């Protein structure tokens, strides 16, 4: 099959590799019909993620058609499914509590060592995202092997356009959980840092959960326009002082809940020195730790902090004093995708949530390297690149 493979910094290629096969009883093989490049894929692209190996297949946002199902799978050949980016077993204690991203068994035993050393306990596996998260081949390919296919994938009814449901794989549930973690109460003002896909879905979700006002913060004008379309007020941090603006916009109180979704998710896997290196070399790198500090500083007394943005190492100058003195609550975590799928699929089918607005570019799988470069070079215009193996070359 053809697959997008990683070879090093700014070097991704579409190669011919062996087709995936059923290995464990609960596996299924999915023929990919649509897959997206995630903002966090750019950090693999930039070469910042440790434990990558040349030839690794990328991609953790994907969907497709079941072509083969193992004896323990509940899927049937021909079904259309969206696959969560988190690989969870459905049988362990954490899966029983719907804490799927904390699954005990999603990571191969040998790969659990690194996360256990870094975090104390290993987390679930992830598709296409380095060997620290399992070394699973991703879905930017013609086919993918999906472990625990009786638990993760959600079956999509016939006749639904791929683009409407593709983002169930990651960014829609991530944005939804971000808003849920903000414990929004009717009448709340919610501030969202970062208008990438997760931030924009958090904006939509916050309104659905009863927020009266959402204030979206970014520096890309096009992304702020998208937030405004969903009813958010906006702050462009290149034009306005964020704390001062928020305090005045909330009558001197501060937002009731703050969401940090500055989407360099990949930071989650950085060790200290790498973070420092990025801080020095990129504007966003320095900005993102700033966003959580700023969010805590601006949040009203007794307010809630939700942090979908992934951190993995150590953060300098975390404002522990402001956090304690104001009595804030912090909720965070990798998304428990499987938990949210049925409700969010229903919301899409009932047209309560729009996802297709996000897609700015559609490319053939063969053009994936071009997609990475476009996304990397122009984050204002390129909000989401969707790859379709079946699409003709542009």
């Amino acid at each position, binding site marked *: 099959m053809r697959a997008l493979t990683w070879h090093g910094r700014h070097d991704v290629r579409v190669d011919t590799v062996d087709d995936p096969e059923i*290995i464990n*009883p609960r596996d299924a093989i999915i023929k990919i019909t649509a897959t997206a490049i995630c903002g966090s894929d750019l950090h693999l692209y930039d070469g910042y993620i440790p434990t990558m190996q040349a030839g690794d*297949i990328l991609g953790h946002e994907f969907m497709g058609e079941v072509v083969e199902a193992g004896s323990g799978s509940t899927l049937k050949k021909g079904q259309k499914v969206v696959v969560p980016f988190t690989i969870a077993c459905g049988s*362990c204690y954490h899966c029983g509590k719907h804490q799927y991203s904390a699954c005990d*068994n999603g*990571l191969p*035993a040998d790969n659990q060592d690194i996360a256990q050393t870094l975090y104390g306990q290993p987390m679930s596996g992830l598709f296409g995202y380095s060997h620290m998260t399992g070394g699973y081949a991703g879905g930017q390919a013609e086919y993918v092997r999906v472990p625990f296919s009786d638990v993760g994938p959600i079956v999509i009814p016939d006749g639904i356009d791929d683009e409407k449901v593709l983002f169930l794989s990651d960014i829609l549930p991530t944005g939804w959980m971000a808003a849920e973690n903000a414990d929004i109460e009717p009448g709340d003002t919610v501030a969202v840092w970062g208008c990438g896909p997760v931030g924009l879905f958090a904006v939509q979700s916050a309104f659905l959960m009863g927020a009266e006002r959402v204030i979206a913060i970014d520096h890309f004008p096009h992304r702020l326009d998208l937030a405004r379309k969903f009813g958010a007020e906006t702050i462009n941090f290149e034009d306005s002082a964020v704390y001062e603006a928020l305090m005045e916009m909330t009558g001197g109180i501060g937002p009731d809940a703050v969401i940090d979704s500055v989407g360099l998710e990949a930071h989650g896997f950085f060790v200290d020195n790498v973070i420092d290196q990025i801080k020095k070399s990129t504007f966003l790198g320095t900005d993102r730790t700033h966003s959580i500090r700023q969010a805590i500083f601006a949040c009203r007394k007794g307010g809630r902090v939700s942090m979908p943005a992934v951190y993995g190492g150590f953060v300098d100058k975390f404002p522990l004093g402001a956090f304690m003195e104001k009595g804030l609550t912090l909720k965070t975590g990798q998304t428990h995708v499987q938990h949210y799928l049925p409700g969010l699929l229903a919301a899409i089918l009932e047209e309560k949530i729009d996802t297709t607005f996000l897609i700015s570019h559609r490319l053939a799988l063969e053009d994936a390297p071009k997609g990475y470069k476009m996304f990397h070079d122009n984050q204002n215009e390129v909000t989401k690149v969707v790859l379709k193996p079946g699409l003709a070359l542009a």
Partner: protein
Amino acid sequence: MSDVNTDDAPLSASKHTAAAIYTATESLIEKRGDTMVGRAVTINRPRAELFAYFRDFTNLAHFMENVERIEVIDAKRSHWVVKAPGGRTVEWDALITDEVGGEYLAWASQPGADIANSGRIDFRDAGARGTVVTATLLYDPPYGVVGKLIAKLFQREPAIQARRDLRRFKQLMETGEVATAARTRKQFEEEMA
């Protein structure tokens, strides 16, 4: 010596290794080495089921990746052939030294073992969470410190193996399979080799 620690922590977590090993070997575990490893894992399955699966040593190779084969000699004795660095194998005879069905099992390698080892494995009810399985292992690092380093480089060090084997035991018991990221059966077989 048994009150060497002033707390309730497991002996395997003790900072006073020699004293902890002395205490551990006063009761159930025979002394077969100077390195002690302890690991606990909670498995979301009933205690009796886990014990029964484990007690049938022909099952162990399903999750103990380094075990090439275990020959069951009789109810108490078994012969172990285990992969070692450099494509070699190490072998020993193990004797069950004590056992209470459904609760624990203690073993010790017999004279002539390539790697002397002993230990116990305990199964304890954990209510709604299933069963806590605790393995405590005493061994002599293969060929001393240098051997241990080489084994570690090749990921065949007993402490690393014990940790990973317990995780695989949990995976197999909870999910019915051992997680692998292999994409093809060929890759899978290479990983198992």
